[in-house]
């Protein structure tokens, strides 16, 4: 038999038993590969979340009368949620967070977009150095970055104040209101631009070069290409980074908590997550903190879904067609 014939015949003849085995293997292998990640997810994310939700419906109440009773866990229904939602301090902290977010989110995304577009220009130099340099701040852990900037803000150690004093303008008040919001936002922007820029730059790189060349042939300059072609084509990446920034802002905790040791302007409940921490570990009200964090999580989910729905048609609509 010739090799071609033998290679053709078995291919036609080789039917059911191996096919059954072949269709079983794909069903188990993916699950096996996912099991470690799934296990970690269940153990460290799902179970704690469910436990926190369970805790939020309970309360530790003093029983036994007298001035020094022992505390027992009792089921209180939605009482924690009501007191959390009607707490004026939570609303105040959300207001401060909004003040911080209004500065940090647009600036982070704007700078990231600008850098990504600049790096995508045809004849730009020092691309790899710039990419690394812009991305490097993201690699600095949050607490260290905050301490770093904190000492750049402190009146006695700040080089900016040194220069401003030498020029006769006195001290710049980085750590008092209202400059504090800008100072906090600056730390977030400094750390966040790198990551967002990389996401946007990757999206830009995936735009086919023909479109770029066609636009240049049509006589568009780089400005018009950026505004009319690049930005619309990378809108999924823009939506993604916007959502990430939104969620990260809602969870801002490290910067104000670390900066708190350097300035008395930051209260214990400056941002919502600081209030959750305060309730849980300082006020010994774990159940109330759990309720507040569930409220914040639901709020974050609602805002993210709402923003996604709003932007979906604009960003993803063209692809779905």
């Amino acid at each position, binding site marked *: 038999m010739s090799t071609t014939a033998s290679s053709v015949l078995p291919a036609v003849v080789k039917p059911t038993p191996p096919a059954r085995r072949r269709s079983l293997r794909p069903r188990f292998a993916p699950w096996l590969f996912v099991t470690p990640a799934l296990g970690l997810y269940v153990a460290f994310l799902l179970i704690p979340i469910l436990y926190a939700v369970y805790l939020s419906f309970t309360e*530790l*109440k*003093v*029983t036994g*009368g*007298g*001035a*020094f*009773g022992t*505390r027992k866990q009792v089921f209180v229904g939605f009482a924690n949620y009501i*007191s959390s939602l009607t707490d004026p301090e939570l609303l105040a902290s959300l207001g401060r967070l909004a003040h911080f977010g209004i500065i940090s989110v647009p600036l982070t995304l704007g700078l990231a977009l600008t850098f990504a577009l600049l790096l995508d220009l045809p004849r730009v130099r020092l691309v790899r150095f710039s990419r690394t340099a812009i991305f490097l701040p993201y690699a600095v852990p949050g607490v260290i970055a905050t301490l770093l900037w904190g*000492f750049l803000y*402190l*009146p*006695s*150690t700040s080089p900016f104040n040194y220069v401003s004093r030498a020029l006769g303008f006195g001290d710049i008040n980085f750590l008092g*209101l209202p400059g504090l919001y800008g100072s906090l936002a600056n730390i977030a922007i400094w750390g966040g631009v790198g990551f967002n820029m990389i996401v946007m730059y990757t999206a830009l790189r995936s735009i086919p070069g023909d479109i770029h060349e066609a636009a240049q042939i049509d006589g568009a300059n780089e400005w018009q290409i950026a505004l009319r072609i690049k930005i619309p084509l990378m809108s999924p990446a823009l939506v993604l980074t916007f959502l990430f920034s939104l969620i990260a802002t809602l969870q801002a905790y490290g910067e104000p908590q670390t900066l708190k*040791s*350097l*300035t*008395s*302007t930051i*209260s*214990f*409940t400056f941002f919502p997550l600081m209030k959750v921490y*305060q309730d849980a570990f*300082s*006020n*010994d*009200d774990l159940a109330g903190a759990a309720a507040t964090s569930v409220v914040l999580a639901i709020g974050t989910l609602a805002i993210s879904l709402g923003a996604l729905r709003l932007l979906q048609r604009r960003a993803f609509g063209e692809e779905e067609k």
Partner: protein
Amino acid sequence: MMMFYRSDLFKKYGIAIPKTWADYAADAKKLHGAHPNVFLGTLPQDGGTFTGLVQQAGGNWWSTDGTKWTVGIDSPASTGVASYWQQLAATGALYTQPFLTPEWNKDVAAGNILTWSAGVWAPGVIDGVAAGTTGKWAAAPLPQWTAGDAQVGLMGGSSVFITKSSKHQAQAAQFLEWLNGSKEGSGDLASISNIYPASIAGQSALATAKVPALMSAQPNFYTVAAKVAANTATVTWGPDVQTAFAAFSDQLQAVQASGGSFAGALTTVQSLTVADMTKSGFTVQK
């Protein structure tokens, strides 16, 4: 609580140890007026310092009769102390950064803050932030509201207890007695942990012990401390001290930014503390 002061700088600026809070205020204003970068002391902005001063004035933030709690955060003694410090701070004669912040540490090390009113454990802390000032500090009794009084309050403190489930309760009690009341035990507490023993036997046992390095200019430091400790006010702590202290810091900061009165801040702290205690299920007397 005692007043720790820079004996060398007191001599340099010609300040006598203030015996009353009125003297303290006068000295602070005079010193700051003559030397704008130097301050006699710091404005208390934390619950620990403030409650110690309130106890000295005869007030207590919490008290109980065994079944009910009474919260006295906005009692006359407490608001009186607050008004004193607010008036003094308004003249600009007090250092306004909270203590143990980087700025405060730097100014203590540089000799721009001359006193710190704190517990007997203070020398270890000062040593940690201003190591170059060893041998330049001394301790004096805290100024009094009325000349001739001797009462002081507590700043911070620690307690010892044995759990019900312990299998060696008698032995644990023996150990705690030794730790707080014997010469070796209290000596170790003082020299290694910077803790001043509450037991009178422990305090007198320290009379012959070596004083902390920071206080080397005052060899009878422990004798002075024991005399001050003999007049400690009776103190009761409530079930939510952390909550009250955090509220105090936040409210004081808010009031300083908005220009309100410290007494008003205390009223807010009072309502927050009472609400927290009621929520936990304690009975609070109105």
